[in-house]
Every structure is written in C-alpha cells, then in structure tokens.
C-alpha cells in the first residue's frame, strides 16, 4: 500500500469528440514540441537530400568542377574561381564541403531507407509466417532470430562484408541481414496477439484465404509497432553504414556517404583542420537524433498501453 495512493483522482477532461483517427494522431504527436520540431527538421533534411544536385554550388564528384588547389580551405574562404564561397570550407580533395555533405546525406539516407524497407518487407513476411504457421516452423524461425539478435549488429555486418566484399549492394545486403530479425520479432509478437482476436476468427468463418487474412487483416493491425521499429531501425542503419564507411569497409570512395566524408577528414583532424570531419558529423548526428526523436514520440502516441 502506497501513501500517495489516496482518494480518487479525477480523470482529466475528455478530449473533444468527433475527430478522425488521423486528426487525433496528429494532435497527440504535436503535443510534444520537441518531436514536432524534429519532424519538421526531418522533412527539411529529406527534401535537401532529394534536391541536392540542383541547389549545391558544385557537383563534388565531377572532377572538372573540383580544383585540387582549393583543398582544405577554411570555412568562409572564396573559391579560386571566385564564383562562390566555401561557407564550410573544403575537404582534402578540394571539394566544397556543403556540396559534398548534401551529396553524402543523399547516399546515407538512400542506403538507410532502402535497407530499412527491404528488411521490413522481408522481416515482416517472415514474422507473419512464423506467427501463422506456429509449431516447428515458428520455433525454428524464432531460434534463428534469437541467435542473430544475440550478436551485435556491427559484428554481423563486418563478417558479411568480409565474406562478400565492398560495394553499395553489399552494404545494403549486410544492413538488411542485420535488421530483418527485429522486424520479424516485432511482427510475430503483434501478429500472435492479433490472430487470437475475434475478427480473425470471423474472417476464417467467412472462408477467406490464409494469405488474405494474413496480409489484409492481421498485417494492418501490426502496423503501429512496425512503424516505430522502422524509424528506430532506419536511424540504426544510417549510423551503422556511417560506422562501416568510417572503418573503410563500407561504401567505396566513388560514392562517399557522410561516414566516409568524416573518415576522410579524420586524417586532417590532428593538424587542426577540424571542419572536414566536424560538419559532416554534425549533419549525421542531427539526422540520427531527429529520426530517434520522431520515433520516440511515435512510440508514445501509437502504444495503446501508454495512451491515457
């Protein structure tokens, strides 16, 4: 018995009725100002990455536009050509850092989102199958999931890369391999809960096919937890890709992501030319934090157990 447990605390005033679920979702989400700002920043980041080729002063991978004489310029130095200013300086190869960063952001986001989507499709399908099949199939699948999750993601990714070699496709394979198990576990968990509910029984009585019940009835009801896992895992994927690229076993030099830019700048760090690593790192950091904040708020809003 707790001392603070006294009397009945009146429930806060009920929400105004007559809202669509989506409106209620928006209202709940924007309750946190931090998450709202994070969401706006995330949209801005994604738009910037998308339109990068049209807004940056130079194409950092077009050798004709990059002048090696411009290498390692301090932030705010005008370019040798005089056409524009390197607001954040240049890197070791003379690339404008703003341009290189936005291109890097594009690659980082693309790799993260692509691996996230593939892993989600794969993991969700496997999780659904496990939940629906039950018995032996389920226990074998879940054993594999548990085994995989007991090893750190970075280790699994490093091993795959050691076996497969470098390259964008290899990195995506490695990231998918690392992530699918989280989706499988999440979907299986909620599918198990859902499949015991009466509407599934009703659908069975109507004689609907297994596939239809699985994908049209059970899967949509597993979406809320899945959405949360997608955001968190995408942030993980971006971070992991950056880490692998930093270690020099990720993306090739021809397609430098943020991680590779940081890695390239690291060698100049000790001589005090901090900006080459610092600014790409800041962008990477901001992207990850923003996604995590949005994910946190989604978890709070979508989790029915937490809703008051």
């Amino acid at each position: 018995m707790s001392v603070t447990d006294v009397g009945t605390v009146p429930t806060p005033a009920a929400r105004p009725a007559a809202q669509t679920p989506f409106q209620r979702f928006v209202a709940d989400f924007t309750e946190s100002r931090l998450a709202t700002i994070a969401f706006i920043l995330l949209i801005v980041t994604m738009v910037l990455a998308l339109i990068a080729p049209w807004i940056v002063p130079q194409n950092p991978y077009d050798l004709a536009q990059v002048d090696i004489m411009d290498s390692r310029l301090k932030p705010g130095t005008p370019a040798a050509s005089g056409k524009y200013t390197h607001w954040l300086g240049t890197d070791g190869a003379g690339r404008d850092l703003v341009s290189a960063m936005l291109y890097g952001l594009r690659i980082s986001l693309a790799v993260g989102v692509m691996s996230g989507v593939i892993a989600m499709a794969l993991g969700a399908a496997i999780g659904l199958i496990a939940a629906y099949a039950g018995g032996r199939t389920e226990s074998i699948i879940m054993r594999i999931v548990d085994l995989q999750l007991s090893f750190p993601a970075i280790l699994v990714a490093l091993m795959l890369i050691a076996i497969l070699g470098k390259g964008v496709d290899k990195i995506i394979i490695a990231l998918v391999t690392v992530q699918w198990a989280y989706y499988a576990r999440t979907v299986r968990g909620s599918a198990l809960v859902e499949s015991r509910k009466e509407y599934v029984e009703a659908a069975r009585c109507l004689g609907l096919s297994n596939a239809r019940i699985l994908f049209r009835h059970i899967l949509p009801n597993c979406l809320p937890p899945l959405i949360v896992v997608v955001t968190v895992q995408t942030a993980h994927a971006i971070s992991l890709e950056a880490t692998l690229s930093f270690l020099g076993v990720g993306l090739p030099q021809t397609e430098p992501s943020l991680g590779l830019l940081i890695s390239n700048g690291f060698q100049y760090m000790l001589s005090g030319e901090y900006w080459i690593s610092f600014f790409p790192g800041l962008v990477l950091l901001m992207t990850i934090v923003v996604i995590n904040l949005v994910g946190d708020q989604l978890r709070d809003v979508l989790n029915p157990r937490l809703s008051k």
Partner: protein
Amino acid sequence: MTGADPRKQEPTLAVEGLKTHFFTKAGVVKAVDGVSLHVNPGEILGLVGESGSGKSITGFSILGLIDAPGRIVEGSIRYKGRELTTASDEELRKLRGDRIAMIFQDPMMTLNPVLRIDTQMIETVRVHHRVSKSEALERSRAALAEVGIPSPESRLKNYPHELSGGMRQRVAIAIAFINKPDLIIADEPTTALDVTIQAQILAEAQALCARTGTAMIWITHDLAVVSSLADRIAVMYAGRVVETGRTSEVVSAPRHPYTRGLINSVPSHNARGSRLAQIPGMTPSLMNLPKGCAFRTRCPQAIDVCLETPPIREIAPGREIRCFNPVGAAQPAAAEVAP
C-alpha cells in the same frame, strides 16, 4: 487491561487536529483533515475506516513517513509529551523502529527480497543500539521465538521468498517488537492472510502487547477484527475521526450514523436470509468533499445544520462523536430540527 484505566495519565501518543494533505497536480487531497486521537501505555486502539478514509496516512504521519507531494499542514503529534511534527528528520529516524515501530499490510512486500532475514533483523537492532553483532543476532533469534516461529535458528538464514506469507508477517512483527518499542502502528497486518492464520497472528499480537506493555494502534477496515482485539476504537471517515470510545460501548451502542452503518453491514449482525444492510452512496472524493459533515450526503439522519462542520464533542467520559444528530439522541444537538 491497564490501558483502559480512565485515570489521568500521560498517553504514549496524543494526536491533536492533525491535517495531512497531498498537493497533487489535480488538486489538494485532504487525506487526513483534523484527526485527534490518543493511545495510553499498553493500550490497543483500533483505528477503523473504509479504504481512503485516511487511517493509513494517519499512521504514516505519526512516523514522519509522508513523502512529497504530501505534507503535514496542521496539528500536533506528541509522543510521551514530545512534539514530533517539529522534530528533525534525524530525531524521527531515531524514534522509528526503536520507540515507535510499524507493521505493514502485505507481508509479501515488506521484507527486502534480496536480503536474508538475519540481515534485516540485525540492522534494526544495531541502527538503534550499540551492541555486538552476536548480541544482535541473539536478540533476533529470541524475537523470532517470541512470535512463535519454529526453529528460528535456521529461519534466520532464509531469504524472505523461502517463507510463507504468515511466516513473513510473523518476521515483520518480530522486527517491530525487537527493540521493545512503546508503540506499534499495525497497518492492516492480517488483511492479506488466510483466516486461520489471521486469528493466530491476532492472538499473538495481543499477547505480545500484554506481555511487553507496548501500546498499539491497529489500523483496519474490519470492525469484527478490532472488536475482539482493541480496548478502544476510533472510527474514521473522510479524513476525520467521527467516533471514539471503549470498544464494547461503540460496538454495542454506536452513536454516529456512520458507525452504525458499519456495524449493520457486518454479516453476523443480520438475520439469515435477510438483505445485508449497506451504507448508500460512495465514499466521497477527498479532493472534493461535501461542505460541512462529509457523511451528510449518505446519512439517513442528516439535517440542515449538517451543512456546518460538526465539532467533536464528548458525550460521556472517554466517548466522543463528531455529529449534530447522533443515533439514539432524543433531540438533535442543534436547535433547528429537520421536519
């Protein structure tokens, strides 16, 4: 028993006009709102009330164990003449477990699951008395034997989860008695136990009090339990004591309508087959109490004057009620009589 002695003597504990309020975000919860009671040496006082009536909070207030957002806002608590509401945390800590001990409701939760019984007993002795570890261990063994635990030697080496609920409550009682306190506050200590074990514990607690001369406040919602145990009864409703008196008098001739309601709703008082009497309505929210007498809205005898707060008044030696229109009164206390 000596505790029932009506002669003037200094009570072990005297609470006067105690108010403990909780300042929550939703509003102020007046959990205890003007409680006065006293316990004499060696006496057992039954503090009776429904859940949420503030009886447990009264107990915790006496020990100085009210946490934020709760606070004692008014009143005095005197232990052997010493004021406790103004005492420092350290002074209160020294009293707790030594002069005033407490037994909790749920024996499954009161003992620390990861510490052995001997650790939890020895620390209780050693925090208050400068004795050797072996001496403290010996006292612990004796205390366990005192509450009827078989082979206390080996029980001392056990962890709480290795004992049954009844055993654990006996251990908690042994811990409460270990420093031979002047007062024990027992917060529904038998509610969570089986009926047979309940009876054993009651008998043991009573015998222990008699043997050691320890006074006790036995907090309960069960009138049947206290009527066989307590020397005196104080009935609480919505943060206030509404009736006090010797157990036999209160039970046989309740004067407050609420006390009468409580007694009538004990099954044994009703003829078989007839409908069990119950008090209409619900316990009011402590944040939003009715004006005047808090029981007014449920009271069959409410009159106009009940919109005022009734003062506590002595209707016989040692018998006090807080009611304008008590049960069995020829005439209401106030002038205006409801038609």
